[in-house]
């Protein structure tokens, strides 16, 4: 099983691509800085958002019921799914009830989490991702490498190639032409689909409404043409009041892509005449996280991806090096809840620089949670060597002897020490051993 270090090293082998990836994401981070700084009270907004989310999560049961009640009043059909399987079954049942064999989707990380596409395809349903990035990824049989910019790891050339293969057009890197072809290609599906699915950015308890934010308008194209709109949302996507929405909408796009607001912010209240809206509330492990001290704060996440754009590890090793649906710093604290063994290397894939927590619009203490995960992941086993090392730290005599010993060895057989510390010395030199330690000098001079 490959952990983050191995996958990272593989990504790093192509240095020019690594640099390009790093610069692309840094550019997004810089755009975020520029638009965020236009808002004088940005930090107050972050505080407000964090507090609203903490209140929501602390009273989630009540807010969920309030939301359900109001959504039902609006004529939305509400479903509850305890896990991914239940969610997928609900989607399939809705499709079957409409005799639909096709589903047009807009971007939804939750459906990625639930493995919806594979499930539906196994049941003979054709799934069409209508977000351009997602469509490209779907064509290439890959997974998104970023939650907001799913195809950010691909260059124009890669995209031109897949377009040429799938749409039988002459290969081009011209984004205007590529978008035009995508438009023609997707429009056919929009016109003919019976059922369309979207994610949910925010659901509002006191109004029973929900909001979907996109830049391409594809979510709207899908649901307005279709008879049935399925909206899948994680239970943590709730906010209590409609007046809270402004706080989050101001933060979301600015943090995500450096835009003041997404091109489309669509509010859904009730189905149109003769149409249906099915909203699926998905738990899939969220209530378990909610019950864990330290970790429940991760549920405040509004999936803006700012922590990825700022993270040097993400920028330089790509989203796929995390090998989890949600990559980057937030992924590294969510993934181990799913599988602490498979994703055990992720909390260690961090220098704990703290930039993620500093950009997070809802102030999730990501670096502190990475640290807490490290304690948790080693917690099962007691380690005698480490315990001994810990003990030595209260024994200055022993500690000094060890340090002196290392210095002597480093002077006598430097090559052996180099080999012993080879993961450090492969790309770096160890510092030289000086004539005396500070302690020795101090003793001589006092």
């Amino acid at each position: 099983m490959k952990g983050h270090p191995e996958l990272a090293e593989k990504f790093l082998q192509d240095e020019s691509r690594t640099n390009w990836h790093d610069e692309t994401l840094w550019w997004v981070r810089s755009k975020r800085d520029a638009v965020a700084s236009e808002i004088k009270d940005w930090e107050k907004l972050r505080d407000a958002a964090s507090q609203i989310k903490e209140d929501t999560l602390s009273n989630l049961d009540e807010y969920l019921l309030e939301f359900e009640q109001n959504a039902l009043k609006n004529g939305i059909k509400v479903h509850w799914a305890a896990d991914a399987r239940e969610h997928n079954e609900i989607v399939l049942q809705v499709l079957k009830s409409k005799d639909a064999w096709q589903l047009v989707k807009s971007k939804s990380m939750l459906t990625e989490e639930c493995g919806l596409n594979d499930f539906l395809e196994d049941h003979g349903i054709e799934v069409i991702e209508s977000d351009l990035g997602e469509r490209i990824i779907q064509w290439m049989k890959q997974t998104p490498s970023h939650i907001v910019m799913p195809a950010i790891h691909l260059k124009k050339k890669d995209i031109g190639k897949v377009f040429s293969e799938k749409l039988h057009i002459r290969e081009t890197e011209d984004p205007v032409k590529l978008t035009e072809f995508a438009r023609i290609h997707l429009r056919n599906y929009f016109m003919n689909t019976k059922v369309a699915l979207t994610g949910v950015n925010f659901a509002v308890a006191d109004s029973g409404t929900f909001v979907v934010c996109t830049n391409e308008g594809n979510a709207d194209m899908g649901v307005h043409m279709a008879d049935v709109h399925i909206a899948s949302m994680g239970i943590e996507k709730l906010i209590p009041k409609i007046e809270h929405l402004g706080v989050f909408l101001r933060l979301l796009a600015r943090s995500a892509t450096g835009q003041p607001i997404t091109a489309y912010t669509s509010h859904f209240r009730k189905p149109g005449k003769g149409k249906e809206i099915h909203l699926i509330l998905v738990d899939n492990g969220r209530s378990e996280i909610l019950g864990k001290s330290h970790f429940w704060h991760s549920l405040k996440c509004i999936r803006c991806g700012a922590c990825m754009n700022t993270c040097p590890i993400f920028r330089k090793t790509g989203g796929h090096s995390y090998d989890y649906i949600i990559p980057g710093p937030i992924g590294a604290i969510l993934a181990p809840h799913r599988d602490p063994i498979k994703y055990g290397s992720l909390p260690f894939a961090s220098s704990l620089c703290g930039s993620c927590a500093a950009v997070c619009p809802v102030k999730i203490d990501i670096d502190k949670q990475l640290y807490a995960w490290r304690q948790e992941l080693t917690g099962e086993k007691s380690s005698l060597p480490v315990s001994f090392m810990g003990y030595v730290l209260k024994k200055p005599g022993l500690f000094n002897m060890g340090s002196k010993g290392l210095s002597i060895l480093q002077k006598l057989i430097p090559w052996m020490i180099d080999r012993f510390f080879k993961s450090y010395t492969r790309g770096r030199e160890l510092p030289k051993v000086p004539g005396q330690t500070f302690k020795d000098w101090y003793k001589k001079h006092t």
Partner: protein
Amino acid sequence: MKIGLFIPCYINQYYPGVGIATLKLLQKHGFEVDYPTGQTCCGQPLANSGYERYTHYAINHFFTLFRKYDVIVSPSASCILFVKEHLKFQPGHHQKIQELSDFLVEQGLTDYSGTSFPKKVGVLQSCHGLRGLHLGSSTEIVGENGDSTIVKLLHNVSDIQLIGLDRPDDCCGFGGTFSVKEPALSVKMGNDRLDDFIRNGAEVITGTDMSCLMHLEGVIKKQRMPLEVMHFSEIICQE
């Protein structure tokens, strides 16, 4: 005010000059400084590896050694952050725990115009000092734009030329045990930081954390880059 000088293990072992400069600097300013010789390591490497539960030996030992001082000062932001966050749970803990530049700025001791350092110097804002101890303004935070403590100390050193960077607070890639767990990435991060310094004309890289500088120095030497690293105390307190 009695100062207890905390010299982190790797500074003691590899960079005694930084310890000496720190001590002399504090003494020059007339402080009563004591260096408890029984000090070992604060335990941070264990904790960051996921073994915080074995650091109580180190923390208790540290507290016993330093309990009689009013202020604990150290030339290493990262170790200070760790000690600060762990000592606060010790009953009877009242000491102020400060990184050296933070201490000097707070005491108003920022005039080093008598010292000359005719070089182009770039400042490495170490992450724990910056985002943990708030020794400067982070680029992520809106509305923060004051000078960092280290710039306040260096800006009037004679003949010094402080250079700007394209990414003033991107991580250098050291991260303690991270440098060993993810060596390829850690070195790449180091290389990218160094490129930024070189691109902007730095001859010397300085900072509040010798550990980050140690990592960068390792990369510099391996690749024979035209750069050197120096802890800021060695710039403002030259022999």
